[in-house]
């Protein structure tokens, strides 16, 4: 009953300015600690994980894949007759790590059956896109994965 009699809320200049200033001060007060906490929680982004990974070329046979880790993410390097290719190891569907099936020469995702070619192209399954390619260079008998 009390609520029905009461007039609607009155908007005053003082009220708007006061609320606005309080909100601005609150945001400014939260920004500093927010930045500190965000940086604290994301140490890998600060360069903790290696940006480059090297593997010996001799150890990589034809149609063989080797697991690598670039900037903290899993990836694969595969030797094909045409080239040595590198792809990110996380399936683009829901992020499970794909397996290399040498007999079928495909990357297979064990979670929902996604299939990819050695260069990351989509071959089948519920995946929305290809596996991102990694930079691969061969130099002095070594395969270097990733960008410096």
């Amino acid at each position, binding site marked *: 009953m009390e609520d029905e009699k009461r007039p609607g809320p009155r908007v005053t200049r003082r009220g708007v300015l006061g609320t606005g200033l309080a909100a601005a001060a609150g945001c400014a007060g939260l920004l500093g600690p927010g930045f*500190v*906490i965000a940086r*604290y929680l994301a*140490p890998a982004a*600060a360069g903790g994980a290696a940006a480059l990974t090297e593997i010996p070329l001799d150890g990589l046979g034809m149609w063989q894949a080797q697991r690598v880790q670039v900037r903290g993410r899993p990836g694969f390097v595969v030797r094909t007759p045409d080239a040595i290719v590198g792809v990110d190891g996380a399936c683009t569907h829901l992020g499970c790590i794909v397996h290399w099936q040498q007999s079928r020469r495909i990357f297979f995702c064990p979670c929902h059956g996604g299939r990819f070619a050695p260069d990351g192209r989509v071959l089948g399954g519920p995946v929305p896109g290809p596996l991102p390619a990694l930079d691969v260079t061969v130099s002095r008998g070594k395969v270097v994965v990733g960008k410096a």
Partner: protein
Amino acid sequence: MSERPEHADGWLDARTGWRRIVRSQLTGYLLPATVNRWYSLGFVLLIFVALQFLTGVLLLIYYVPDARFAFESVQSIANEIPFGWLIRLLHVHGASAMVVVMLLHMLSVVVMGSYKSPRELHWVTGCLLLFVALGLCFTGYVLPWSQLSFWATTVGMNLVGSVPGIGLAIQKAVQGGEVVGPATLGRTFALHIMVLPTAMLALIVTHLYLVRFSGISAPPRLRPVVEARKRHFFPDFVFEDLAVAFSVLAVFAAVLFFRPHLYFPPEAFEPADPFVTPEHVKPEWYFLAPYQVLRWIPNKTLGIALQILAVTAIVLLPFLDRGERVHILRRPLFLASLALVVVALVALTAVGMQ
């Protein structure tokens, strides 16, 4: 029952009654107009407790509670994780600041006689909060697993073991063996991050409930007057509390940034070594007074028993001091005793630091 809430807050109010809570606890909560700035120390304490919880959770993300990796993980937090040094320093300095503000809060309560009837339980829960806070400080001291941690804990544990009757049992239970070792770390870690924080939260809730139930006392006056004026808790006192809190935080920040290693003697930067005792093993500053008493009284059990008696008397203060007079200047004997206790504590701490 035909009421139809128009806005989201009305909808929420119909289901939670938040407007009534805001009215009764904030805007409509009236306090004696004479309440002074010393009363804000309780609010400042809540801020420090919140700071300890937040920084504690952040430290937990990288800390490894295993004697083989604990020291390394703390060094990594302090030197490698972005802003890890700041989070750690806030936690270490925050612990001491919490004890300092707690002691000042208690001192103001004693001086203003706020512990007297009907607020005896405020005082008792406050004392228990101090003990829990000291327990948190003590158990937190172990976790970096440095030489300082290891040997200060060894000394502290032996003091606990000297408590007549149950001392040895408690010492062994917390140590997880005959001496301080890797098992101690797991036990103190559990106490530090779960048992004691839970106890602290429960005590804070009880303390605040009691403060609301009996109401805040008005500062005593030499000549009693009928003071009817009241002021709103929100916004009047909340803004005054915030002003005091920011002043204290400014001092806290100055100590933290200009004396970052105030609580870190050289032993804090060496990993724990059970076979090498550092030359000067001393507990943290808040335990120096009892430590010094034990150095002066040759019989350890007698020294501990005397201190337990003193602490019990402090906890039971409202039941021992039942006089009608509240103003400190109307209680000269009490004032003299209080001054003596404060001077003795400061002097013992100062001597203990030598």
